[in-house]
């Protein structure tokens, strides 16, 4: 159960760190945001990252990837989190690629996976229908027709749904709210007839979309996996995405924490460094302890995926639940301890704060994962 990066993984992390520090740091993100041209990430940077092989880390070698595992991918996401690097890595190279790998036919795999690994194709997955993460509450009807399927309804908060070339739609072909059976996955091109994309603007200024289907015709060969059997590949793919998102959040929490400690060390009030006030010292020490414990939970989740352990669900829900709470705690303390300037847009802390709060809701808030954890433990 490795909880520490090995030599190769550390080298990868270092090279990614160097790259994003120079090419995709917080200032780049701020510029991107202020341009307001709707672009949530920089295609050139993404292309360069792909050249580094980042987009292939979790894709099997047989399909043009590096098959380098989730500990490695987690290390990349942590660096992204520290610099607020925006990219389709999570939606496409982790979540989307995983669904195609686990549910797709050989044809589909060889058609899409190499392109995703090369960063030439981006995929987004449409899961949500309400304001809270709830894959089993999927009710978008998938009606079978003579030459395929018909979709009517909408999906919400699709991560990178605006920019993605290809969309994977989770719908229901049978069963009721909460049923694990009856879930079906379909592949749609971004410009599929009868599908409309609406922009969801969120506080983290990244790419989210609602998808609206009006008698959308989907050809039979767009089926990913078999009808009604999406649950198993979906759960594992979700856990892979959750673990990687947790790693990104860990980077963000670490960065907020480090910046706050630095501020405590330098800011003067009442004729002394505010970091010398015991009340703040104890709160900082408490944050540090919480952060170190949460880091271990995140590493364990990534490691569970690499080792295909049978407690992946518990490991991932522990990681997401804890990182949600840790991020919230540290984000609020970071603002409070920075005082007045903490609530200005000029200071970067606010950007981390906003990203953190969106991430908390993505792929399951603490309530969702606490519920799941309790269920897995039989209470």
């Amino acid at each position, binding site marked *: 159960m490795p909880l520490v990066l090995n030599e190769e993984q550390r080298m990868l992390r270092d090279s990614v760190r160097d790259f994003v520090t120079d090419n995709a740091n917080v200032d780049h993100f701020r510029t991107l945001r202020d341009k307001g041209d709707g672009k949530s990430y920089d295609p050139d940077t993404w292309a360069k990252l792909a050249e580094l092989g980042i987009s292939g880390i979790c894709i099997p070698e047989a399909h043009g990837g590096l098959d380098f595992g989730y500990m490695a991918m987690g290390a990349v996401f942590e660096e992204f989190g520290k610099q607020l690097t925006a990219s389709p890595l999570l939606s496409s190279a982790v979540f989307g690629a995983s669904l195609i790998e686990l549910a797709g036919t050989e044809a589909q795999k060889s058609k899409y996976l190499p392109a995703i690994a090369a960063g030439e194709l981006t995929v987004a997955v449409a899961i949500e229908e309400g*304001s809270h*993460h709830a894959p089993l509450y999927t009710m978008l009807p998938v009606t079978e027709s003579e030459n395929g399927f018909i979709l009517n309804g909408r999906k919400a908060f699709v991560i990178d749904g605006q920019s993605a070339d290809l969309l994977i739609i989770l719908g229901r072909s049978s069963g009721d709210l909460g049923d694990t059976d009856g879930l079906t996955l379909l592949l749609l091109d971004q410009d599929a007839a009868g599908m409309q994309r609406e922009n969801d*603007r*969120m*506080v983290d200024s990244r790419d989210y979309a609602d998808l609206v289907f009006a008698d959308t015709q989907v050809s039979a060969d767009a089926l990913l996996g078999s009808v009604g059997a999406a649950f198993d590949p979906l759960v594992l793919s979700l856990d892979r995405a959750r673990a990687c998102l947790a790693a990104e959040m860990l980077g963000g929490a670490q960065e907020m924490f480090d910046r706050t400690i630095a501020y405590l060390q330098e800011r003067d*009030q009442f004729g002394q460094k505010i970091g010398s006030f015991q009340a703040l010292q104890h709160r900082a020490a408490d944050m540090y302890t919480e952060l170190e414990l949460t880091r271990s939970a995140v590493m364990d989740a990534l490691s569970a995926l690499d080792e295909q352990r049978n407690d992946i669900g518990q490991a991932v829900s522990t990681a997401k639940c804890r990182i949600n709470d840790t991020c919230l705690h540290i984000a609020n303390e970071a603002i409070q301890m920075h005082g007045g300037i903490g*609530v200005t847009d*000029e200071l970067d802390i606010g950007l981390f704060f906003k990203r953190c709060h969106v991430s908390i809701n993505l792929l399951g808030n603490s*309530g969702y994962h606490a*519920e799941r954890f309790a269920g897995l433990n039989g209470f």
Partner: protein
Amino acid sequence: MSEIDYDAFRVEAREWLEQNCPVSMRTPPATDRSDNVMGGSKFVFKSDDQRIWMERMADRGWTALEWPRKYGGGGLDARQAKIVRKEMAKLNCREPLIGHGIWMLGPALLEYGSEEQKLQHLPNIVNGSIRWCQGYSEPGAGSDLASLRCKAEDIGDHYLVNGQKCWTSDGDKADWMFCLVRTDDSGPKQQGISFVLFPMDTPGVAVRPVPLLTGESHFCDTFLENVEVPKQNLVGNEGEGWTIAKALLVHERNMMSSMDDTMPAPPKSLVEYATEYVGLNENGRLRDQRLRARMVSQMMNKRALDLTQARAFEEGMAGVLDMRMTSIFKYAGTENIKDNTELLVDVLGHSGVRWDAEGHYEETQRTAAWMNALSFTIAGGSSEVQLNVIAKRSLELPQE
């Protein structure tokens, strides 16, 4: 006055309010900042009703219920004032006029101002013609306000003021500023601070709005370069500024601990939002147990907080109030608002972190309210400062 009079007064007040408060001003609570009347030469009324309501109340002096009649106030005693507020609440009447003039400067002038200053400024606050802003904090002086450096040089009949102020709320919309300046460097920092007044259009005053997390700018940086302030605009004596500021801080804390009365309130209750955005399960329980537990704690906490404010008032009336207890209100009040707005966005889930005022106005309002509330535990004496005060003053724990 005996019991009877108060009852009669209540009837009177209620009748007058019913007759004079426009229906559109009885839609509680304000759902938008622009529903708050801040007054001043730059203020634009949202509707005639809004203007009429302010004017009618101002004519009776009821925009400042407890200020003396001769300064344009309502001249009521504490109990009468509470009666009017209660009746206004019953009819859901909006506050006719709010702001730093009513909340802060007025009380300061009433206690420390000269008769001339009272007659010059108080009526214009009551009738909403002049809007005031506060020049307290400086880049180097936040929680540690007394270390402020903004310098006021004595040039015979006036002061020459140089320095920078920050967190001037709506400084770009105000007509006048009440400002803390340093008139003496020697001796302890609390001494040598003076309290002065000047118009914002005085030569040398420059204002820069500072964008917050929401992108809006409620606060400004104010730059003061060779600003001439006539000596008759000094409130109290030279060097008395800190005493006045401390007295004012109490008002500010009271103001902030009851922030949510003036804050844009959500059109729906927490429970309504939760039912809509989270949903109930087959047993009628909220689907998300974590959120459910947080809602219970928050609702109980708010209930206890409101009851504590009511208890403090009753104890005051009964003459058994332990003043040390009032030191908790700014801390407890602002932390509660922060928790409450945060809980609400968490209840809204993905919809609570939207930023799309056109497409999703109501949801985005909740998000903005939450981000704004982050400053409540920082401004007006941070929670840390409040805890210090509670520990040292109320609990009499030793200094180091």
